[in-house]
């Protein structure tokens, strides 16, 4: 099957000045990754392994130093700024901290309808109707559409961020540590929402996290990053049953495993 998006040998170097002298930091040291339509691909790795840099490159928000990203038949890294701007709506990103990525002065409805109006997809009236439907879709009832971000709980804000990302009907939704700041019970709600969107809309998702347990729960494919490289990549079952790389093994070992209480009512 042809992948939806294929990254080839991505390299990204940043200039860093820790103590005055210039130093080159290699965030991505040759990453190749294929993302297939309708699948949830999880990317796990320690802090500093290059996960977020990869997310920014794939979302067309950073240009890699070298390498290519094939999407809809062309290398999007080679496109000019105008062309890239037309690609970006198809590759949407959701960040860890919804409080920091939502405009505090807009209502939920305005936040979700804004991208539709900026992209001139629809007129105001229709944009609002679509935004309302999307909010319902992610579990924000119509009567809360007029509230501003600070009136929502952390979980609802993240739902709002997901609704906004979905507004432009992206081909790929990239979630960069989108659950990390949430309580376990709220993480479960958002996880269920993602699974539900996958089965109902055929959503393609790149789920970036350092929580191996959640990655293992959600993903069809898992990639493990270490020092700017993807060191292991494959079907989730395979990686969980027979991990091969040392980095994968040490991350699995560090993942606190929590056995579901078989039947909680039975202990009574």
């Amino acid at each position, binding site marked *: 099957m042809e992948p939806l998006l294929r990254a080839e040998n991505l390299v990204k170097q940043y200039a860093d000045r820790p103590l005055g002298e210039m130093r080159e930091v290699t965030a991505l040291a040759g990453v190749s990754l294929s993302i297939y339509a309708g699948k949830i691909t999880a990317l796990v790795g320690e802090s500093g392994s290059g996960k977020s840099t990869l997310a920014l490159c794939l979302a067309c928000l950073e240009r890699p130093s070298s390498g290519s990203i094939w999407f809809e038949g062309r290398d999007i890294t080679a496109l000019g700024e105008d062309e890239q701007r037309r690609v970006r709506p198809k590759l949407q990103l959701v960040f860890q901290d919804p409080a920091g990525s939502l405009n505090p002065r807009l209502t939920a409805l305005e936040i979700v309808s804004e991208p539709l109006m900026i992209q001139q997809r629809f007129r105001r009236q229709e944009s609002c109707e679509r935004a309302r439907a999307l909010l319902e879709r992610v579990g924000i009832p119509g009567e809360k559409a007029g509230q501003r971000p600070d009136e929502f709980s952390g979980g609802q804000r993240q739902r709002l961020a997901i609704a906004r990302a979905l507004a432009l009907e992206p081909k790929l939704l990239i979630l960069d540590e989108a659950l990390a700041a949430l309580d376990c019970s709220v993480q479960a709600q958002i996880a269920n929402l993602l699974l539900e969107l996958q089965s109902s809309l055929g959503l393609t998702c790149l789920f970036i996290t350092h929580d191996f347990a959640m990655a293992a729960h959600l993903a069809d494919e898992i990639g493990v990053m270490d020092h700017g490289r993807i060191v292991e990549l494959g079907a989730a079952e395979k990686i969980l049953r027979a991990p091969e790389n040392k980095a994968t093994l040490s991350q699995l070992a*560090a993942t606190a495993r929590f056995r579901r209480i078989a039947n909680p009512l039975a202990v009574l």
Partner: protein
Amino acid sequence: MDVGARRDLLLVHRMTPLLEVQDLHVTYYSRTGAAIPALAGLSFDLRSCEILGVLGESGSGKSTLATALVRLPSANGKIEKGTVTFEGQNLLRATPRELEKIRGGRIALIFQEPSLALHPTLPAGEQVSDVLAAHKSLSRKALREKTWQLFADLFPGAESRRIADSYPHQLSGGQRQRVLLAQAIACRPSLIVADEPTASLDPITQQEILSLFRTLRLQLNLSIILITHNPALLVGLADRVLVMYAGRVAEIGPTRDVLSSPRHPYTRALLRCLPSPFDGDLGGRKMKLPLIPGELRRSTQLTGGCEFEPRCTERMDVCTTRAPALVALSEAHNVSCFKYGG
């Protein structure tokens, strides 16, 4: 000291509570004057050299507990009543001078975000020696040596001097958290209260920091209150777990009992919504996770009944009439739920 003697000493220590919290009430006042109860009659005790895990969701009052113990509620928070007895002294009656000695000296606080807790324009070493200087009268030379010793202890390997000379932004998240730990143990406190100390770290660094807690507890006879929303962190670390809901104790008991045979409907619901993809030949993957219906109420008024009742799947008529009392299921395992008496 040989192992046997050490164990005896630990046993003796564990007999007497180091900290006793009774009927603690903390209320926040909004700008409009509305009173929002954060702690609503919290009681528990902590023994010497014990690690108590405090489990709760945002809004359960767990961070309020951390600050209330050393009487540092935020500006709009007020400790209404209760007692906090620490090393025989009621901290809620202590004078400001006495509190100054206790904060950072006998009780150390560690917060979630190490990049915010450290001063951005001071080297890490200076920030640790500042803590020492505030509590002990030491010569500059002694101060420097003690600081270096702390860094050598917490950063095994040759790089400890370099880290002491570094600014916070030059350190990784794990290193910053170790600097906070150096500050915390600098004056050899008997209690560390750590509020989500590993939330921003990746699992490998997380495990490193947690095992450091384990080591320090034994080396320094420390008691630790570890506040978290992630039950998985407490396995193999905490001696007991306190589950908080709406500013009260829902369940408290030995870690094993609470996490593997939870009794309170809330604890059960909370543990059930964790993904467990490794169970049963990976069969649970991609299944819908069981959710807790509703949301933690952030209202200005306690209902007068059990606060979990609106979300509880096992509610009974009695649940709305009054708040359940703590019921002892065994010597150490207590639950506040009418199912067990209450």
